């Protein structure tokens, strides 16, 4: 089977999953009465008097499947309801809060991958020696850390004890004014990238200063995860015949580890990129809440605590779609990296 046929097949397989996901999300709202469901679309107090009209428009008193049809049609047209906590449609909220979250992800992802792979392969190369024991304990510790608590402790030290060295939020007040002024072009709404495009050093530095703690908080768990995985994968790789061959022909240990063992050990790490994404998605909710870093995670947590159901469900739906796509890309990538994997999905 060719790559194109494989991708098409995988895309077709996505349809039932995404269908199930939407039915599930819509099914959850069936916990509510039609009036409560209608209020998910209500934008102002004045509209509350129009509830019967909204029930009529969206057919909220009809049978389940009919309602589902109306709802999914609205979703395809970008109408996910009204998010009361931020006073805007859920769809607009997603797009306006996404850049902040992307900014966190842009910095956290390379750190997770590089630190995890480096530390994991170091541990494996020095198995049962000090490096290995230290990284092992650090990994289990990192894996057990309540990230919300880590964030608070980091803030207590670097914002409290060091007098505002690394503050919460995305930018300090004057920089925020500057960024929103007419002189500053908002290309992407990602502060660091916009600062570089505007050739504005102070904004860049200020944005980086605000990013350090959230990025650390967001990365810790995933670094620990990748590190452990990389260690066992590397150990397995180091025991393989090709490593023995490489050593036997007199290659330097560094070359054996870096070229022969590590490249092969990377394959299992790629397959878990989906988990890393899920870890980031879960993590941004907590991290952004602690640091008042106003991205989609912050918005979702606000929505959840103030019972803004439309916001929470829209956020969950968005994440499910993204997660499914990420897994698809990972699988396709996997067939490229490891030629032994036939596109039918069977390892020879």
């Amino acid at each position: 089977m060719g790559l194109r046929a494989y991708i098409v097949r995988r895309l077709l397989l996505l349809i039932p999953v995404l269908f199930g996901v939407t039915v599930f999300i819509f099914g959850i709202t069936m916990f509510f009465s039609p009036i409560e469901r209608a209020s998910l679309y209500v934008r102002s107090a004045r509209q509350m008097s129009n509830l019967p009209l909204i029930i009529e428009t969206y057919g909220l008193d009809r049978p389940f499947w009919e309602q589902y049809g109306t709802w999914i049609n609205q979703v395809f047209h970008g109408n996910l309801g009204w998010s009361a906590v931020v006073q805007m449609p859920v769809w607009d909220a997603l797009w306006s809060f996404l850049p902040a979250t992307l900014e966190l992800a842009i910095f956290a992802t390379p750190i997770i991958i590089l630190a995890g792979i480096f530390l994991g392969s170091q541990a494996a190369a020095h198995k049962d020696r000090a490096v290995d024991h230290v990284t092992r304990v650090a990994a289990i510790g990192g894996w057990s850390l309540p990230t919300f608590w880590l964030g608070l402790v980091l803030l207590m030290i670097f914002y409290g004890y060091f007098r505002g060295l690394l503050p919460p939020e995305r930018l300090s007040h004057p920089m925020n004014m500057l960024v929103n002024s007419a002189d500053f072009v908002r290309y992407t709404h990602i502060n660091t990238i916009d600062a570089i495009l505007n050739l504005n050093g102070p904004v860049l530095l200020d944005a980086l200063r605000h990013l350090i703690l959230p990025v650390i908080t967001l990365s810790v768990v995933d670094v620990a995860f990748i590190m452990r995985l990389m260690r066992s994968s590397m150990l397995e790789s180091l025991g393989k015949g090709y490593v023995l061959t490489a050593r036997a022909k007199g290659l330097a240990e560094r070359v054996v580890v870096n070229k022969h063992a590590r490249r092969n050990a990377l394959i299992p790490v790629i397959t878990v990129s989906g988990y890393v994404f899920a870890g980031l998605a879960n993590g941004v909710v907590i991290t952004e809440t602690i640091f008042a870093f106003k991205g989609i995670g912050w918005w979702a947590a606000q929505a959840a605590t103030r019972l803004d159901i439309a916001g929470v469900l829209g956020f969950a739906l968005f994440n499910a779609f993204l997660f499914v796509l990420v897994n698809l890309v990972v699988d396709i990538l996997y067939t490229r990296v490891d030629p032994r994997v036939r596109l039918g999905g069977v390892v020879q």
Partner: protein
Amino acid sequence: MTGWKFRARQLARNPLSLAGIIIIFIFAIIAIFAPLIAPTPEGHGNPYLIPRDGYSATPQLPSEEHIFGTTEGQYDIFYGVIWGTRSAFHVGLVVIGIIVVVGIILGSLAGYFGGVIDEVIMRITDIFLAFPALILAMAIVTVIGPSLKSVMIALVVVSWPSYARLIRGDILQVREEDYIEASRGLGASSARVIIRHALPNAIYPTLIMASLDIGAVVLSAAALSFLGLGAPEGYADWGQLTSFARNWIVGPSADPLRYWFAVTIPGLFILFFVLGWNLLGDAFRDILDPRLARR
């Protein structure tokens, strides 16, 4: 030496897993003897509600009366973390217990019968696994209304699919074994074959790993509580105690670390509790994976 004795000895010899066992043991003691360690004041109703010393917002420093101090709203931190240990075990044990039962039932049905049943159950797990777990849990709790019970329900809903899949895989491995064939040939019913022959030979490793996930469950529950989606205010719960400290991470300018106790102590309890289970889980993973154990 039988396999189990050998494994138990391996665990006791490894310093990390030994540390894990000791930590969990200490927490178990704390949970069992909570009424003696932190006695409920006379006339105070539900012992899981933390007694308050006034209603002022500002935390009190540790003193004779409150050895870990009080947090925002004058909740006694010592009382909260001690009784919070009970809440943690309660949430962890109940959630893992239900997940394991659901996982065994659905996983063995799917693995043993295959065909349409397998297909349906697996496609349902696909739907649940399409969400990042904490986000789905958050959505479920929001919809059914924040409470400790909702948190537990949500964690069961988001976690059962992975266990059902693991157990299905285990069953698939033993399904074609001769002793299963033999039992079927002797006329045993499907239920009998599954319960008496397939399960006992297939699922012990999965069961052990599942039970050690108590730490992960408690961590997720604490995160939801921290966001304000868990127990009612004042309930002895580590996640909530941590969230009380959110306004007090920076003390007065002369003494910025003044409220360190309110910020750090509840979180340390979460950290060590989860660490204990994870240390044990990590050691077990090595023992159960013979490919790694031999090296």
